[in-house]
């Protein structure tokens, strides 16, 4: 994985000391909250419902064991013994003291991490496929491109005050595991005539106005990519609306201009930018690429896995994915235990996983947008030993992509923007579908819950989505069906009137019962919904 050079480290270290001074001045009263707020937000420090919250960037969701251990130690030292993995492959701490925040950032910097650009109207953390570099179906490794974009976008002076926040995703497989088309810019690496380049999508996003990003260019050459993305941003920065926060995202600009006109302006800008020689030399991409070279895989390893332990077999079936290298597997760690909090892990669990990362996965771990973790380099012969250690720590849930593998934002339990709680609803659904024994029969079903219209819980992209709203001071939950963040990307549709906390759980059982009754061979819930349409589901729910 990428290692900081002296410039990276110097920038991050300088930023820590700058923030230390800013925080000291705020505590001493020489900075008002009005003046300090944008400064703390530039360093990922929010003021949430109960306390300050720090959001830490995990570039394209990739961590070393040492970094993971530090995240656990921070949870124990500065927080209340736990942390929350987010839907943008980041991690959040819920109980940070302003007077300790600079020391925390210094600890992060000691392992080449920071919280810069995790808030504000700038280019946020670059996201990617959690199986990058190990998936059998990718045309190239997206991580060098993601890292190049990370370096290009860090402290980019022209894009520090965009009309609104900006999210970029890079994938390299036809199967989209990162909700690429629901980003402001989505990049899919493709191979044409043996040459790798990028399909570029722009204007996707969730939030209050969800849109699937349209394709802007079907192929951008490798050495043009930075210029092309720069052109996409520049048109947005120039014409994106700054008068209305709710219409300020690029998706609104692309929609209002029309895809063809936006594309025309980008091409015009691109032609100009190319005259400026902004693209990094190929040697720089090669330098970055060297950090992501395949590890020294052992050869001659067996592909056999002893599945005589039924609990282990069930875990392998659900959590283990094919690796491109014979003898190796990709192991998903669920952070969705029944009755747990989706995406939360204790300090002890995080530190244990750091150990497992070093011992079983060539010192690398990934965070997924579905709030789970991935060990990407596990020898098949060591899966059983790994599983036993995970099980002992309560980390061996076997529910990847099942109805209890719920994405949920922190909701009104933590978030000052939320209108309703998400976590208790997720817990009730998981408990219902564990106790009624239908989870396995239902199979793949992506259920996603947001506690407000900002959609951090990706409810628009859920096969089943839930949106919490405030109805005259009472929590109310709208039900959406038919969304997908995958390569068959679509936006869910609202079924009708909302429900209370118990009613939404009943409604979900009603729609899944209809699916079980009506499905045809091989159909997932989403497929059955798409074949039947909304009407029978609506009829089943509301009569």
């Amino acid at each position, binding site marked *: 994985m990428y290692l900081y050079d002296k410039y990276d480290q110097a920038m991050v270290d300088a930023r820590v000391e700058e923030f230390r001074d800013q925080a000291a001045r705020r505590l001493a009263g020489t900075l008002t909250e009005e003046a300090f707020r944008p400064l703390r937000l530039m360093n990922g420090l929010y003021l949430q419902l109960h306390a300050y919250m720090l959001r830490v960037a995990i570039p394209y969701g990739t961590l070393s064991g040492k970094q993971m251990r530090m995240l656990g130690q921070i949870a124990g030292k500065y927080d209340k013994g736990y942390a929350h993995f987010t839907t943008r492959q980041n991690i959040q701490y819920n109980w940070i003291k302003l007077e300790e925040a600079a020391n925390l950032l210094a600890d992060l910097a000691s392992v080449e991490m920071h919280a810069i650009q995790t808030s504000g109207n700038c280019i946020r953390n670059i996201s990617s496929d959690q199986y990058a570099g190990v998936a059998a179906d990718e045309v190239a490794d997206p991580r060098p491109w993601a890292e190049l974009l990370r370096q290009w976008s860090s402290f980019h002076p022209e894009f520090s005050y965009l009309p609104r926040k900006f999210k970029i995703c890079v994938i390299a497989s036809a199967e989209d595991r990162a909700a690429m088309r629901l980003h402001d810019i989505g990049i899919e690496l493709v191979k044409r005539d043996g040459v790798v380049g990028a399909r570029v999508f722009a204007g996707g996003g969730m939030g209050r106005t969800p849109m699937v990003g349209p394709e802007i260019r079907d192929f951008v050459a490798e050495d043009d990519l930075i210029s092309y993305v720069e052109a996409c941003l520049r048109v947005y920065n120039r014409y994106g609306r700054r008068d209305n926060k709710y219409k300020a995202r690029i998706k609104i600009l692309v929609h209002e201009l029309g895809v063809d006109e936006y594309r025309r302006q980008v091409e015009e800008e691109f032609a100009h930018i190319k005259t400026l020689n902004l693209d990094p030399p190929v040697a720089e991409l090669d330098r970055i690429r060297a950090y992501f070279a395949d590890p020294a895989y052992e050869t001659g390893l067996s592909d056999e896995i002893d599945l005589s332990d039924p609990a282990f077999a069930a875990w392998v079936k659900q959590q283990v994915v094919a690796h491109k290298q014979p003898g190796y597997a990709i192991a998903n760690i669920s952070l969705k235990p029944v009755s747990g909090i989706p995406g939360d892990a204790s300090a002890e669990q995080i530190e244990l996983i750091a150990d497992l990362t070093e011992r079983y996965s060539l010192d690398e771990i990934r965070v997924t947008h579905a709030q789970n973790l991935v060990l990407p380099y596990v020898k098949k012969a060591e899966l059983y030993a790994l599983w036993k250690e995970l099980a002992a720590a309560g980390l061996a849930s076997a529910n990847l992509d099942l109805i209890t593998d719920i994405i949920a934002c922190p909701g009104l*339990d933590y978030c000052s923007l939320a209108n309703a709680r998400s976590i208790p609803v997720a817990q009730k659904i998981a408990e219902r579908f564990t106790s009624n024994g239908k989870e396995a029969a239902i199979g793949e079903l992506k259920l996603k819950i947001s506690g407000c219209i900002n959609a951090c819980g990706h409810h628009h992209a859920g096969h089943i989505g839930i949106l919490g709203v405030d109805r005259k001071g009472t929590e109310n939950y709208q039900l959406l069906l038919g969304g997908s963040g995958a390569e068959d990307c679509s936006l869910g549709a609202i079924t009708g009137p909302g429900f209370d906390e118990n009613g939404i759980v009943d409604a979900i059982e009603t729609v899944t019962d209809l699916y079980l009754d009506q499905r045809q061979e091989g159909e997932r819930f989403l497929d059955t919904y798409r074949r039947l349409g909304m009407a029978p589901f609506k009829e089943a729910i509301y009569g």
Partner: protein
Amino acid sequence: MKVLTGNDLASGDVIWWTGKGWSRHIGEAVEVGDEGEAIAKAEADARRVNVPYVVDAEATANGPLPLHIKERIRASGPTVRADLAINNQIPIVKA
């Protein structure tokens, strides 16, 4: 009734105005009437509170109970972490 709340500047803790200072327990909060904004400004200027504001509440036998669910959760702590509760006797969903 109206009560005054905010977050402690240094720790970020949710705090409530008691008439003499600040408490983490809403049960100790007092009615601020029309004085809320003035108290808020003075306390913010003195750096004893961050982002103070007035919320509506009803008087109960156990002390003030905010009318809005968001403030009730601020007063109680996260409802999904009983171990971290400040006061888990606060009814989050009103009957």
